[in-house]
């Protein structure tokens, strides 16, 4: 595809058609990329979890079950669109839209290749953090709109979780920004001669836990906890709107994996393969880790979720910030490999001490 190879080097000055053509090309690329990656994510999750549970996973539709996500999408689209009459119609209808759009916005700032991103905002990361918390509004509208007690509980849990996990997530990002000196995602990827996962191990761990808590995956999937709240906030959704929420769940997972690859795994930089392929491989690997934790770990209770955020991640994030600040200020030009050793030691100590002292909340309330 010459378009992609054309964008191999930094975007040239005489990029044909100026801004509008560039905007159109990348919007199409982003939408296609998100939809295809979501299909791939659904397939990886169902096959991966299947093989982890001693079963095959879908292998009937298409070769090796590759058309299973397509079959799911078709089935869900053909389903009747039931709206409960106690529901608040407008809020119920609008919720999936508001939940889905921020996820697409995140991809505007993620570099697929050197300079190949919709807009290289110099406040890229700030834009990501700001936008990613809008989808909580959509989820809460869904919870409130469907007039069902279970979904209201699910939505309340989601709001509580996102509020308390925003802070460790942002602190982890600031740790990274201190080392790069700039907020723009392109600059972050350029600054990563040593992937930040080695330089900032504690930051990576905090970011990964906070991200999977916000998009309600792996041990923190309380928002649509199947065993307690039947299907959490999207209990009353069916048909097209349910497809949107299904899409949101996986698109957010892909978005978070993409952000993690950009910030911690040095984005598209890699030795032999073409850069955009590196980016996709790393995103899939991070997504697979999310599938892996989802298959293994039981769910955490809501008050333990809160306690984990405030009593464990937040102090650890502050320590990480403090240590990386000292390193950058006092030894600005020293090679970063020394920081790798120091930071890994700090991470091990923080986790060791943290897990020892961490008491996740009171269990029983005197009633």
């Amino acid at each position: 595809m010459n378009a992609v190879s054309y964008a191999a080097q930094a975007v040239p000055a005489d990029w044909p058609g100026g801004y509008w053509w560039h905007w159109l090309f990348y919007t199409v690329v982003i939408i296609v990329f998100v939809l295809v990656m979501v299909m791939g994510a659904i397939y990886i999750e169902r096959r991966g979890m299947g093989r982890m549970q001693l079963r095959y996973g879908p292998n009937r539709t298409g070769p090796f079950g590759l058309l299973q996500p397509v079959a799911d999408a078709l089935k869900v689209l053909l389903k009747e669109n039931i709206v409960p009459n106690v529901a608040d119609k407008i809020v119920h209808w609008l919720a999936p839209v508001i939940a889905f759009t921020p996820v697409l916005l995140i991809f505007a700032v993620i570099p697929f290749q050197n300079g190949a991103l919709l807009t290289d905002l110099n406040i890229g990361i700030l834009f990501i953090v700001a936008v990613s918390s809008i989808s909580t509004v959509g989820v809460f509208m869904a919870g409130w709109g469907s007039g069902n007690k279970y979904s209201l509980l699910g939505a309340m849990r989601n709001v509580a979780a996102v509020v308390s996990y925003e802070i460790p997530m942002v602190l982890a990002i600031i740790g990274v920004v201190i080392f790069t000196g700039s907020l723009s995602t392109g600059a972050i990827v350029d600054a990563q001669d040593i992937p930040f996962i080695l330089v900032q191990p504690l930051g990576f761990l905090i970011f990964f836990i906070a991200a999977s808590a916000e998009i309600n995956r792996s041990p923190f999937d309380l928002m649509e906890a199947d065993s307690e709240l039947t299907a959490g906030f999207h209990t009353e959704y069916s048909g097209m709107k349910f497809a949107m929420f299904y899409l949101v769940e996986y698109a957010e997972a892909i978005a978070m994996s993409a952000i993690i690859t950009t910030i911690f795994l040095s984005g598209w930089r890699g030795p032999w393969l073409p850069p955009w392929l590196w980016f996709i491989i790393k995103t899939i690997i991070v997504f697979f880790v999310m599938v892996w934790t989802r298959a293994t770990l039981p769910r955490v209770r809501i008050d333990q979720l809160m306690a984990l955020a405030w009593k464990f991640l937040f102090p650890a994030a502050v320590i990480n910030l403090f240590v990386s600040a000292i390193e950058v200020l006092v030894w600005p030009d020293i090679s970063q490999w020394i920081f790798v050793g120091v930071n890994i030691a700090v991470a091990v100590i923080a986790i060791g001490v943290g897990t020892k002292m961490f008491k996740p909340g009171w269990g029983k309330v005197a009633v």
Partner: protein
Amino acid sequence: MTTTQEISLQTEPFVLNMGPLHPSTHGVYRMRVTLDGEVVLDIEPMFGYLHRGIEKLMEERTYTGCIPLTDRLDYASAMGNNLAYCVAVEKLAKIRVPERGEYIRVITAEMIRIANHCLAVGSMLNDAGALGTPFFYLWNEREKLYDLFEMLCGQRVLHNYIRIGGVSQDLPDEFLPALEKFVPQLHKFINEFEFFLKQNEILIARAQGVGVLPKDVALNCGISGPLARASGIKRDLRKDDPYSVYDRFEFDIPTAENGDCYDRYRVRMEEMKQSLHIIDQAIKKVPGGPFRAKVPQIIRPPAGEAYGHIEGPKGELGFYLVSDNSIAPYRCHIRSTSFINLTALRQMVKGWKIADLIVIFGSIDITMGEVDR
């Protein structure tokens, strides 16, 4: 270790209906939960959605005809129900079971205990949120036991295998070698499963100290089985009131002290090991000879009454039979373990959150067929 804390802000409780159709109510069990935010204030269970009137049906069937009915009581461990019913009828009609029949009964009872505990622990972890993985690993072992039951009596779940005076058919010759091959496999599996879940922090956080059932409340409610043993009541009918040939095997009864969900999970895993130990001993000593006493198809026990009970996988399962010397039992009351084990649910759950309510309910391990009869 868990500190209790007063609720400060004033909130208004609301009633949530965890209805018969709910992903983790193990069948058609319904409860109206009064909630204050996430904290459970009170639950009011409602039964009867699976009430088929089995005790009434039993009054119209011959003593042998009732055996397929007992399959449908606790459909997760049908062999246990057959055994309890047949032990009661043999006590009523004073029938002696030959040696080989007794040994086959002990082997199948221990096999169904393992299968039931696989299901119980699996579904409790499924409720705790581990999406299917522990459940599928345990179900894989239960599938192996299904194969053995199918080889024995033709059906995987509703066995209808034990008869009054012994068992319906003899062991096929490839049954014992397959069982001998299965025992070490299960040992290896249990060790791997312990490695997988025993120290899992999230499971400890979700299950330890949750839903504590104090010993005196358990005794007062008539709780039996792993639920009681987890609270420290050292009572197991195989030792206290040995039926069949259980007094010839040496095995010990695992108990725990603080009676929370984690201890119930531990007691069930230990009990699976003990059952394996019993099967090991039983396989070596299965005698030859008849597997069933000379009992006609339709028996007329002398007028009178008898109560026979066994240590089923879920606890004490008993049948109180009254006969008036006719071909059908005059009255048959089923002492159902799950129904009585549920009486303590209200005390166990008060003050905990919804997520704990589901884990506690899963740790009790009930089957609705046995609750509603």
